[in-house]
């Protein structure tokens, strides 16, 4: 009985966690459609990374995003995704750095700049809360 309970909890925990994060009005990038400026190869990796994000498997997600970045190293969206993964992982300092890196690669993209800006703010606040 307790075993049962434990197992079911473990199964739904990532879902709960994602819901919780989303409910906190955190930066939502994992779920939305991929912007057109990401090529097909990187898009397929991004999609796979997203399934890991849904499952709370942050390192697997990060590994795939890094792989996507090797294909499109100057793609600010990919950097932003990696920043988001680090944010959800609770690695706030990295999230801030990566979001800054993302913004530095897309000086004209105000939408993305805005997203990065929000992510940085939230990461700073979360870091302060400890």
């Amino acid at each position, binding site marked *: 009985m307790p075993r049962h309970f434990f197992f079911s909890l473990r199964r739904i925990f990532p879902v709960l966690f994602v819901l919780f994060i989303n409910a906190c009005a955190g930066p939502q990038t994992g779920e939305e459609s991929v912007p057109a400026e990401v090529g*097909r190869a990187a898009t397929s990796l991004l999609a796979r990374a997203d399934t890991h994000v849904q499952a709370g498997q942050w390192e*697997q997600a990060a*590994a795939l995003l890094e792989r996507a*970045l090797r294909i499109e*190293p100057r793609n600010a969206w990919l950097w932003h995704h*990696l920043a988001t993964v680090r944010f959800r992982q609770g690695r706030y300092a*990295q999230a801030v750095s990566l979001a*800054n890196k993302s913004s*530095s690669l897309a*000086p004209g993209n105000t939408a993305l700049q805005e997203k990065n800006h929000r992510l940085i703010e939230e990461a700073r606040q979360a870091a302060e809360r400890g």
Partner: protein
Amino acid sequence: MARRKSSKPRRKSASRRRRPQKRRPVLRALFTVMLIGFVALLVYVAWLDNQVRQQFEGKRWALPAQVYARPLELYPGQALTVEQLQAELQRLGYREHNRPHQPGTYAWLGRSLVITTRSFDFWDGREPSRTLRVEFSRRNLSDIRRADNGDVVDLVRLDPSLIGRIYPAHKEDRVLVRLDEVPPLLIDALLTVEDRDFYQHHGVSPRAIGRALWANLRAGHTVQGGSTLTQQLVKNFFLSNERTLTRKLNEAIMALLLEWRYDKDEILEAYLNEIYLGQDGRRAIHGFGLASQFYFERPLRQLKIEQITLLVALVKGPSYYDPRRFPARASERRDLVLRLMTEQGMLDSAYAEDARGHKPGVTPRAASGVTRLPAFMDLVRRQLRRDYSDEDLRSEGLRIFTSLDPEVQQAAELALSGQLARLPGEDLQGGLVTVDVNSGEVLAVVGGRDPRFAGFNRALDAQRPIGSLVKPAIYLTALARGDYTLATLLDDGPLSLDLGAGETWQPRNFDHLSHGQVPLFQALGQSYNQATARLGLALGVPAVLDTLQALGIERELPAWPAQLLGIASLSPLEVAQMYHTLAAGGFRTPLRAIRAVLTPQGEPLQRYPLEVVQAAPALPVFLLDAALVNAVRHGTGEAAYRSLPESLIVAGKTGTTNDLRDSWFAGFSGDRLAVVWLGRDDNRPAGLTGARGALRVWADTLRRLDVQSFEPPAPLGIEWVWVDAHTGLRIAEDCSSAVRLPFAKGTAPRERVRCAD
């Protein structure tokens, strides 16, 4: 009396009671001391046991770790030529076949390739084997489809090439041998000379000690040691030349412990793989397997009698009997081994006589290491030891995925050895590191002019004054302050600084001329020492050192004025770290050679992910990078365009040190960064400036690769203005002295100057 009487018994009884109490403490104390002593001894022995067992277990390896290069990813739109893919297939050992349906086969149909890939387990999952049709346009891979149903494939990852096998828990290369692979003659010779009672004793041999004592007494000096193989093995575990009684005692206890824990064959096998048999610069040669490669360039089982006995002769003192430096001594000792063997009936005297007549055939120069990429492997080994736990590294059969790019490595090797061959001096040496600008991954390392030679790794270990390579840190410090622009005029007049104690510091320009007032970007581009030193002093040496640290130089540097001219000694790898931060827009990423490590079960060991730190604000880095682009286009790096296409934008800096001892170049394109050092190992002048030496190697490396222009996105608030190279004032675009430079909005020069021509 009664009182006495009464008092006496009382005293007596009291004393009777007291006496045992008086004695007991002594006994008890003695007992306690003995107990403590005994426990301490037990603890000590247990500690020794633990130590020696750790060493022994750590040195018994069966399966080495496999080290892989980066896998090649294929995707539509990729900048990849037919030739590049063909070269990769060759490296991977894919075979051409009419019907390429087996994994690892391919066929070309004009410019389209049909290939069946191999499946491979990566750290992020399995890549399945697939039969694909790959199409190329002129410079790109244009399309990938499944051969069976024509479905488009977005991304394919080929299996990575195996670049080496290493024992990551060890600092050195090993060529391990199993006991049953070792020629019996070697074991006979070894036991005859070093430990005749090996299979009888328990780790320590009183008989051998007695025999050695007797022999030494008779000879009047030490001719024989009484150490058993087990003792020698223990001694080898804890290499130190200390010759104290405690040490001997410890060795003896540990030898007994080893014998108690392991059987004779295990100990012998460990001995054969562990014993120290030579030195190659910093690289220690351990074990008969590696020694065989090192002295004869052939595997152990191919050795002849005269060679086997020579190796056994070396056990006594590899440097004293070094067959390359002291061939006579080594032969004499080998003849002694042969004689002892015939005396003991281990070798027919006719064979011994024949062996004595043959030269052992030691190769004239230390053979190259066991890997084709000794310098890169060296970096992998160091990063493994730095970033992973010893315990993890000891596991058998790890798979290590690195960032080595075979194409870049080949380009770097050809460039370095090719350019060195054209420059005067056979002993001119060099080191080169190539890094991916975007990821901070190390793509190639060359440690010397012979890239197969596993000796001194100059890319990592040659620490040389960096000269003018330090200058970007000074100019970045200035630009980050906000009151300097690329056009700010600097005074290049003569400079003399009183250092106190009667000493003065007088930096001079390379051409021994002063250039008056020069715009900041020109002072960097032309590498003027006087202007730079004056600027650095105005900013303060500590501020410059702070910038260096932010860029990734971890070494503590004293705040001397001479730092401004690059007296700091750094390795090419450290310089690469610093310049990488500049190439990456001010974001610092620790340079990595390892992507992942997997256990044989496919479990990833803790991974070191891509990390970035904003080390310097983006805007001043952008300005500085523009000045470094100018330094190659119109400054000291100009000669790069003798081999690079005009249209390619690259950035970089030359470095030259006093008396032309060191020739440096550090620079980057949009995707590749390379740092090159040339010089002599003994620090004698190389006779080369940065531009005449290292720059050529750098440009040749980039020329061989299909690199991208360095065109970083401009941060917000940048404007581009044409300025005069002499005055730093605005000038018409079509003037010959006009240079287009970026400025933070509102800081560009306002005044205009007319064309001089």
